[in-house]
């Protein structure tokens, strides 16, 4: 998928490495939709 893109690189160690380094992570908002009673 590098074709046409400036540069594509994977993050060494993935999300764990980012988390272990103490950098900020944001939570995905999970919304529950419930039919009104």
């Amino acid at each position, binding site marked *: *998928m590098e074709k046409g*893109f*400036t540069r594509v*690189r*994977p993050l060494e160690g*993935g*999300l764990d490495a980012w988390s272990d*380094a103490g950098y900020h*992570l944001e*939570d995905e908002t999970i919304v529950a939709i419930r039919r009104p009673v």
Partner: protein
Amino acid sequence: MHELTTYLLHYGLAIIFANVFLEQLGAPVPALPTLIVAGALAQQGQMGLGSVLGVALLAALLADTVWFLIGRWQGHRVLRTVCRLSLSPDSCVRGTEDLFERAGMPSLLYAKFIPGYNTIAPPLAGAMRKTLISFLFWDALGSLLWLGSGLALGYIFHHAVNQVLQHLEDLGFWAGVVLAAGLALVILYKWWQRRRVMKVLRLARVSAAELKALMDSGNPPQIVDVRNRSAHLHDPRRIPGAMKMTIDEIDARLGDLPRDREIVLYCT
């Protein structure tokens, strides 16, 4: 009777237990040759097929249960530790998660026949909060298939196995030296090959510190979270600004990615 065969008969069950247990824990000591020899000895009535199968099954289930419990305790984090033994930790974690997500627990039936997945499947089942009963059921069936295949090979080709044992017998003490040297060479070659590939991969990757510096610069990269659904359910956090896109979606959503900025992909 060959001296070597006598030795195998005397310590056979203990050797089979240790070999299967260590291999299932992830040690580079293949159990298949031992199972083949045991199958050949069983064909000649020198070992009980039932006791060999029972001991090997117990060893496999014990080792797999250890990994299952570690997976349950440590979650997805343990996958990265196990996958460090493979050539590409990222693709190892993602590939095994995808395989498990598609086939579920029945994948344990054939897990032992797939190099790599063999060690990953038990902790993965634990990390995915599967029940111990269900794990033991599928793992026992898969283990029986795998152990049965090895023993059956020895049972069928017992003449060829006897010839190999005879050659080793002729070598005497040196048989042990040859086997140990062969095993050491295999481990050394794998380690060297892995080290070489990891060196190349490291150059093509971005570290967490480098990514942070890029994000704080004037031209931050587009970060893409390529974790699969189960990984998101397990850990819903993400790197700030990351776009969610599974590996399967990338081709269809190429247009969503900027072409004037660097792209950084990450998984578990």
